[in-house]
């Protein structure tokens, strides 16, 4: 098994995180926003795994499982919200939910 340097892992994680973030702010559809959020979470997960393997510690994998659980719970809540949103506004466009503007 070839050794992958930690810098490469962190670089990948950064790229994934940026892609996810750009997805969150550029997408209008909330479903895609949620998916982009997942990408961001996974980017963080990659960083944890990479760091865990670099230092030969199990903590990184523990953290990843935690993030995975969190993501599952978040998706459950998020999808429930989207159903309500679809019922109420008949669309999933996030820009229509701007009623709380100052």
């Amino acid at each position, binding site marked *: 098994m070839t050794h992958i340097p930690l810098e490469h892992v962190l670089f990948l994680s950064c790229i994934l995180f940026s892609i996810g973030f750009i997805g969150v702010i550029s*997408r209008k559809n909330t479903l895609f926003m949620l998916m982009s959020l997942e990408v961001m979470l996974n980017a963080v997960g990659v960083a944890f795994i990479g760091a865990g393997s670099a230092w030969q510690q199990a903590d990184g994998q523990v953290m990843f499982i935690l993030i995975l659980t969190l993501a599952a719970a978040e998706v459950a809540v998020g999808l429930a919200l989207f159903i309500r949103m679809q019922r109420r506004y008949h669309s999933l466009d*996030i820009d229509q939910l701007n009623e*709380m*503007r100052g």
Partner: protein
Amino acid sequence: MSTFMLSALPFYPLVSFILLITLGKRLSWQQASFLSVGAMALSAISSGVLVYQLSQSNMHVFTAQLWSWFSLKSNTGTTDVNFTFYLDALSSVMICVVTGIGFLIHLFAAVYMKSDENFSRFMAYMNLFIVAMLILVLADNLVLLYLGWEGVGLCSFLLIGFWYQEKGNVLAARKAFIVTRIGDTAMAIGLFMLFKSLGQLNIVAVSEAAQASWQVGNNDAYWIALLLLGGAVGKSAQLPLQTWLPDAMAGPTPVSALIHAATMVTAGVYLIARMHGVFLLAPEVMQYVAWVGASTLLLAGVAALVQTDIKRVLAYSTMSQIGYMMLALGAGAWSAGVFHLMTHAFFKALLFLTAGAVILALHHQQNLFRMGGLLKRLPVESTLFIIGLICLMALPGTSGFFSKEAIIAELWSSSTAGPSLWWCAIIGALLTSIYSCRLFFLAFLGKERFETQLHIEKSKLLRMSLIILAALSLLGGLISLNLQEVFAVVSTKVVNMNEPSWLHTVAILTPFIGIAFSWFFFSRYRLGENNEIVAKQNSIYKFLRNGLGFDTLYQWLLIRPYCFIAKLNQRDIIDQVIMLNAWYVRLWHDTLSMTQNGSLRWYAAAFGLAIVCLVGVVTL
């Protein structure tokens, strides 16, 4: 006993006012008129009794302290300003006029205003007016006098604008209020100066302190007297603040009789008579008083010659008669001035009320050129009106004769008046008789120039009040006023002055000359051969009819520039400076609230940017 009666005097109408204003329309006509007229009857009777007691007792003065009001610190100690009434010979004349004439006018008004839906409000204001006037004349200090003074102004505002549904009436009320307020401000400043220099506000104490500490011609006395004259000029409708009085005829006719003939406009005369101790120390101001009186007398006389409205003729004649009183005061003929005040109250109330009866009979027609021939149709009213007019013209034997001759007799040899003012008074008398004749010819002689059926009021109350006033007008000259102890110090007569022997003859003959002149000059009005007599319409007549253009003058001189500045400064400049703070806060508010646009993506982007910046700052 007399102390109690004195202190209770203004409270009868006050209680009636409170009841009428609170119960309002729940009272029937009988109840409301019984209350208000009854209160007036009570105060008229008690003032009669008071004056009788005053003349019988060996004291010259009754005082009644109701309660302490406040005290002021001055450089000479503290001065108490109390709610104290002070009755001497001068104020007893005034309370008799106010309550006596006031009672008769209330009696008339109860019938005249019977069909008005706001009858009880009207009577309430009339009562309140009497309260204010009584406080004014009974006050023993100048602050209390000022309270009554302002109360009178308020009531005149309320009563002129009584029929407030019509815009003209409201404007007239506003005009009266604002114009008299100018005079009141002058008077208030005068009172401040008086207190500052003498440290006294009690009227008797002020007179004594002034005599003791000032020389004749003292600068303080000059300014204080001048400012008090300003107040008197405003209230008594003299030049240059006379413009409100003709417009004030917008009120119901009893109001014109009560406020603008018999009582309120005499407040200025009363003030000067009351403060004669100060005025005597400022002979220059006394000359101003005389000249103000004389010029108003002539101006109003000329304006009365061309009026078309019966009430406006009487309004201008009131101004000119008050001018006589001012002239008398300026000449130092205090008693004559106050005497004329009293007789004028009698006959002017009579004239106004009779005019009211005529107007009522003609269904509120006030235009003289729409009357005519009323002598045959309304014989009683016509006779009463003739009585009023001959008193106004001062024909020998009437009350007006005694008082006006008393004034004219003192003018020639007075040091503050003199022959030129005597001639003014004579010309004024001539004008008075001419406009009186014109009024009489137009309204009562000639052919009938109205189409409507006459509305004859058969009320005995109405007739009775008119007949009592007529009797007073005719016989009022026999009342001898004993004002010596009030005006004891007075002598402005130049001792070595020779009066020509023809003075009195001329003064007595003048009204007859006026009558003879108008008999021929106004023969067209008298005979009324053609049915259509119209008022002349050329520009000179218009100029005279509008009171010699004073309204236009003030319009251009004061009102227009004022409105222009007000318009210019519509957004108050000082306000704008203060508003800068608000704008600053507003700007930040707008900027910050722009960031709260409710868009989740925008927030997320801002969040990311902030993190990038933060990380950048920390790492670099």
